[in-house]
């Protein structure tokens, strides 16, 4: 196995009395694409939020490129800390609801954090943003505001926005779930290209076709634990666990 990009050990996360993650271990290699499947409420999204410390875990360890990011003063409390900077500069995230900044144009959405966080000049940020927006097929929409873009276009801007920070890992949280069916493909195509370029990706999704085609590995979660994991073809075609079979059966029967 290649060098571990990300490794999660015994992750526990609860919201109030509700235990959402009950001991999750995952090891992800550099350049690996992992799809996380599972019913809603199984803890998939929370897992992603743990990784970039939007929802720091209460228990367990997360190593990002060998650094323990759950340790040290302020960890686990949402405080400003070196871990946050370290993590957020290396981990990009794309959300189900896009979360573009509605008062900023597509271009400004992609330049804002480059300037404020990475300290790039206006010119540099602009060039990088233009290049990325062209790459996701939106070179002609630079000055559009989010409300005039389709959901698929907005989501591609959101991907460009995350990529502009030169992340080492990309997290995708059900990024096609809020899209009209005909807009799903354009977003998945963008993600396919990203995977082909060797980006390390954790993709929470219900798109089994995408998982089968792109994922190196599939993780099936239920009730806050990993029920089954393995190569995509194996888990999707020949699941061992009863719970996985049941879930895949329901999804495929739609």
């Amino acid at each position, binding site marked *: 196995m290649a060098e571990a990009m990300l490794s999660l050990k015994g992750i526990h996360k609860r919201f109030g009395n509700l235990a959402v993650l009950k001991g999750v271990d995952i090891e992800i290699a550099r350049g690996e694409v992992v799809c996380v499947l599972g019913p809603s409420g199984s803890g998939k999204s929370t897992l992603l939020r743990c990784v970039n410390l*939007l929802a720091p875990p209460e228990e367990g360890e997360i190593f990002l490129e060998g650094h323990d990011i759950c340790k040290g003063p302020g960890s686990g*409390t949402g405080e*400003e800390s070196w871990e946050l900077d370290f993590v957020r500069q290396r981990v*990009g995230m794309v959300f189900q609801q896009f979360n573009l*900044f509605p*008062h900023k144009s597509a271009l400004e959405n992609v330049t*804002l954090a480059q300037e*404020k966080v990475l300290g790039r000049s206006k010119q540099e940020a602009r060039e990088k943003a233009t290049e990325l927006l062209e790459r996701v097929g939106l070179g002609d929409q630079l000055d559009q505001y989010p409300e005039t873009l389709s959901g698929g276009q907005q989501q591609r801007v959101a991907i460009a926005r*995350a990529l502009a*920070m030169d992340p080492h890992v990309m997290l995708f949280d059900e990024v096609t779930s809020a899209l009209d069916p005909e807009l799903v493909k354009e977003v998945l195509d963008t993600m396919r290209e990203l995977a082909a370029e060797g980006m390390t990706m954790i993709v929470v999704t219900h798109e089994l076709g995408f998982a089968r085609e792109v994922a190196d590995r599939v993780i099936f979660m239920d009730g806050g634990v990993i029920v089954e994991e393995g190569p995509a073809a194996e888990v999707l075609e020949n699941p061992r666990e009863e719970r996985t079979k049941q879930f895949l059966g329901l999804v495929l029967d739609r």
Partner: protein
Amino acid sequence: MSQFFNQYFNFNVMGEHFGEVLVAFLQNLLVFAVAAFLALLWGLGLALLRQLPSRKLAPIRFITIAYIDIFRAVPILIIILMISGGVPFLTFLPQEVRIPHWFGRPDPFWYGVAALVIVYGAFTAEVYRAGIEAVPKGQMEAARSLGMSHFQAMRHVIVPQAITKIPAPMLNELISLLKDTTLVSVIALSESVLVSREILAERLNSSALTLTAIFFLVIILPLARLVDYLIKRNQLKITRGSHIEVA
């Protein structure tokens, strides 16, 4: 009936004292302008302090909430009297703070401004808070996931969106503030109500007060209409499904 009319709407009295009352009313507008500017800033500051993240900063949040609650509850008149009647005797303060005459304005002017800013900062903070809380949670998450600090996210992402959501309620606060500038008359600032009362005492006629009321109406009625218009426009946006203003 004519007695009533003469007491409140004596055009001779109004005409003779028009200039005097107008100049005094401009004093109200000046108090308003300075206090509104400072209260809008102070209120934003309070709102941001109230939204500070993390457990470690909870005491600051708590103090801010206490401040906002207290000064929304205490009558402004008391605050005005406490400042004008107390601050001059706090000898640990420098002279120019105890008895301020900044920019050629008399000390009651600044005591009044201070009281209004202290109180209206609390009120505007609540309006800002409503605006900030109306911004979807995902905006903060997206900004933070891009590596922005809480403060950067507030400044570049949350607050610019929040202020587009609150012009109507904020305008209501400003209307109240404008009216409350008349309270400063109790500490002998020559603003319109004080001057009108002097005229009342001299002429035993209330028409100068009516004139002052008319000045307020002339300024405030259009603002009230504007509030209604803003509320309607905002509702239209919500029903259209895009409640977010594009700058």
